[in-house]
C-alpha cells in the first residue's frame, strides 16, 4: 500500500506543476501591456508601477513564473486589485458558502441518483427503467441556470414558498438558510443525480450478473437482501471515485447557480473577478480549484485502493 501511495503521489506532482504553468500562462493571453490591462480602467500610474514591480513584468516568463510559484508555495496567491485583499483571504471567506451548497447538492444527488439507478437496473427493460433513463437524460440536457430560473418562477413567483435569491448564514438562522439553499442545491444536484443514476445502473447490472449474486439467490436469500446487501454494497465502490470526479461539475455548476440565486460564494467570486478584470483572483481561484480537484482524485484513488486490493497490485 505504501508503494502504491508513493507511486500515486509521484504522478500528481508533475500534474500540479504543469497546471500551475498553464494557469500562470493565462496572463500571456492578455492583449498589450499586462500592467496597463491589470491596472483597470483608471490606469493609475502608481498602480501600474506597483504592478510592474510586484509581478516582475520586466523579467522573462520563466523568471516571473518562478517568483509567482514561490509565492504560491508560501500560500500567497496574489492580491485582489479591486477589493484590496489577499486572494487567499477572499477564497477562505467565500468557500464555506459554496461547500455548504455543494454538500446539500451531493445529498440530493445521492438521494435521487442511487435509488433511481438501482430500480432501473433491477427492473431492467420495464417502464421503471425507461422512466429513470428519461429522468437522467433530462438531468444531463437541462442547463442548470435555466432550471434555476424556472424553479424561481414556480416556487418563488407563483407559489411564494421560497426566497428567489439571497443567502443567510446557518449560524444566524438555520431555517432561512435552508429555505435559501434548497432550490440552488437541487439545481446543482440535478445534473450529478443523472450521472450517478447512469453509473449506479451500469455497476448494478454488472454486479447482478455475477456468480456470488447467483449463489446468494440459490441459497434462498431474500431478493431485497440480495439487492441491498450483496449487490449494491459492491456496486457502490466505483461510485466513490465518481464522487471525486463530479467535484469539477459541482464547482462549474456553482458558478452559474450562485449567479442565478445571488449567493455570495466561490462561483460568484470568479464571475465578479472576471467583470472587475481582477485577474489575480481569476488565476488564484482556478489554481485552487485545480489543486483541490487533483487532491480529491488522489483521495478517491486511495479509498478505491483500500476497498479493492487488486488496484494496489496493478
Amino acid at each position, binding site marked *: 500500500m505504501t508503494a502504491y501511495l508513493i507511486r500515486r503521489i509521484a504522478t500528481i506532482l*508533475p*500534474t*500540479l*506543476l*504543469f*497546471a500551475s*504553468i*498553464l*494557469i500562470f500562462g*493565462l*496572463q500571456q*493571453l*492578455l*492583449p498589450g501591456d499586462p500592467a496597463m490591462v491589470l491596472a483597470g480602467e483608471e490606469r493609475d500610474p502608481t498602480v501600474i508601477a506597483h504592478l510592474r514591480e510586484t509581478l516582475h513584468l520586466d523579467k522573462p516568463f520563466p523568471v516571473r513564473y518562478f517568483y509567482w510559484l514561490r509565492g504560491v508555495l508560501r500560500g500567497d496567491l496574489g492580491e485582489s486589485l479591486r477589493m484590496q485583499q489577499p486572494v487567499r483571504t477572499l477564497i477562505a471567506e467565500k468557500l464555506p458558502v459554496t461547500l455548504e451548497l455543494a454538500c446539500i447538492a451531493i445529498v440530493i444527488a445521492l438521494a435521487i441518483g442511487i435509488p433511481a439507478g438501482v430500480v432501473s437496473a433491477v427492473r431492467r427493460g420495464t417502464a421503471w427503467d425507461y422512466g429513470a433513463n428519461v429522468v437522467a*437524460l*433530462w438531468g*444531463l*440536457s*437541462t*442547463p442548470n*441556470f*435555466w432550471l434555476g*430560473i*424556472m424553479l*424561481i*418562477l414556480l416556487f418563488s*413567483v407563483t407559489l411564494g414558498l421560497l426566497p*428567489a435569491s439571497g443567502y443567510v448564514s446557518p449560524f444566524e438562522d438555520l431555517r432561512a438558510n435552508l429555505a435559501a439553499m434548497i432550490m440552488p442545491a437541487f439545481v446543482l444536484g440535478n445534473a450529478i443525480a443523472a*450521472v450517478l443514476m447512469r453509473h449506479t445502473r451500469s455497476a448494478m447490472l454488472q454486479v447482478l450478473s455475477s456468480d456470488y449474486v447467483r449463489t446468494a439467490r440459490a441459497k434462498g436469500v431474500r431478493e431485497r437482501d440480495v439487492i441491498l446487501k450483496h449487490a449494491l454494497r459492491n456496486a457502490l465502490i466505483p461510485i466513490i471515485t465518481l464522487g471525486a*470526479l463530479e*467535484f*469539477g*461539475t459541482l*464547482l*462549474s*455548476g456553482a*458558478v*452559474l447557480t450562485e*449567479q*442565478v440565486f445571488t449567493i455570495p460564494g466561490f462561483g460568484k467570486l*470568479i*464571475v465578479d*473577478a*472576471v*467583470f472587475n478584470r481582477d*485577474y489575480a483572483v*481569476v*488565476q488564484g*481561484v*482556478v489554481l485552487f*480549484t*485545480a*489543486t483541490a*480537484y*487533483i487532491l480529491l482524485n488522489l483521495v478517491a484513488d486511495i479509498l478505491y485502493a483500500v476497498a479493492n486490493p487488486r488496484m494496489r497490485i496493478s
Partner: protein
Amino acid sequence: MATVVDAPPIVASDARASSRPHPLRRLLRRPSAAIGLAVIVAFVTIAIFAPFLAPYDPIATNFGAVRKAPSAAHWFGTDEIGRDVLSRVIFGARASLEAGVLSVLISLAVGVPTGLLAGYAGGKVDMLISRVTDALLACPFLILAIALAAFLGPSLANAMIAIGISATPVFIRLTRGTTLAAKSEDYVLAARAIGNSPLRIAVRHVLPNIVPPLLVQATLAIAAAVIAEASLSFLGLGQQPPQPSWGSMLNTAKNYIDNAAWMAIWPGVSIFLLVLSFNLVGDGLRDALDPRHS
C-alpha cells in the same frame, strides 16, 4: 465534459463488420436517436434560413411593445425593449450551433493529432503530453473556459476558442488510448513490416480505425459545448448584445421573471431540445458503432 467514451475494439478486419448493417441505418433504427437527428436537422434548417423564417428583425427595438405577452403578432412575446422573442430565438440558434460545432472542431484539430502523436510515439513524448493533458483536465471544464474567455476578452469567437481549448484534453486522452490499442493490431504490425513510415501508419492506418469513438465523443461534446456557450453568454462572456444568443436572452430574462416569464421559457426550451438531441444521437451512435453496446 470530462467523460471519455469507451474505445470500441478495432473491427476493421473483422468479418462480422461486413455482415452488420451500415452504421447510419443502425443509428436510424433507434427511435430516440432518429428523433434527436430530426430535431438537430430542424435546428440547422432554422439557423440557415433564419432571415426568411424570423417574423421580425431580431435586434429591432419597439418601445411601444415592451414585455408584451405571447399573441398573434408576437408568438413568443416581446422582451424588455420590445424585441420579438421568437425572432431572437430563431437567430439565437445560429450562435449555439456555430459555437457547438466550431469549438468541437477546434478540439478535434488540436486533440486528435496530439493524441495520435502521444499514442504512437510513446516514451517521453507521450509522458509530456499526458502530464499536460492531466493538468488541463484538472481544471473543471467551465471554470477553465470562463478563465480563458476572461483573459481573451468577451466575444462569441473567443468563447468558442475557450470552449474548444477546454474540451481538447478529452480528445487527446481518447485518441491516445485508442491509438495505443490500435498499435498492437495485426494490420498495423503488417503495415510496419512492409516499411510504411510512422506518419503514414498513424494517418492512413490508425486514424481511420479510431474514428468511431471520436465521432461519438464529438457528438456528446457538441451537446456540452452548446451548454457551455449558453453558460458563457449567460455570464456575459459569449455573444455580446444586441446580437441574440439563448444564454444572453436568459441572463436578461431572469430580471423580469416575475412579470415576463415568456422571455425565459423559450430560449431555455431551445437549449434543452438541442442539447437533448445531441445527447440522444451521441448515445445512439455509441450503440450503433460499438458492437459491445448493441
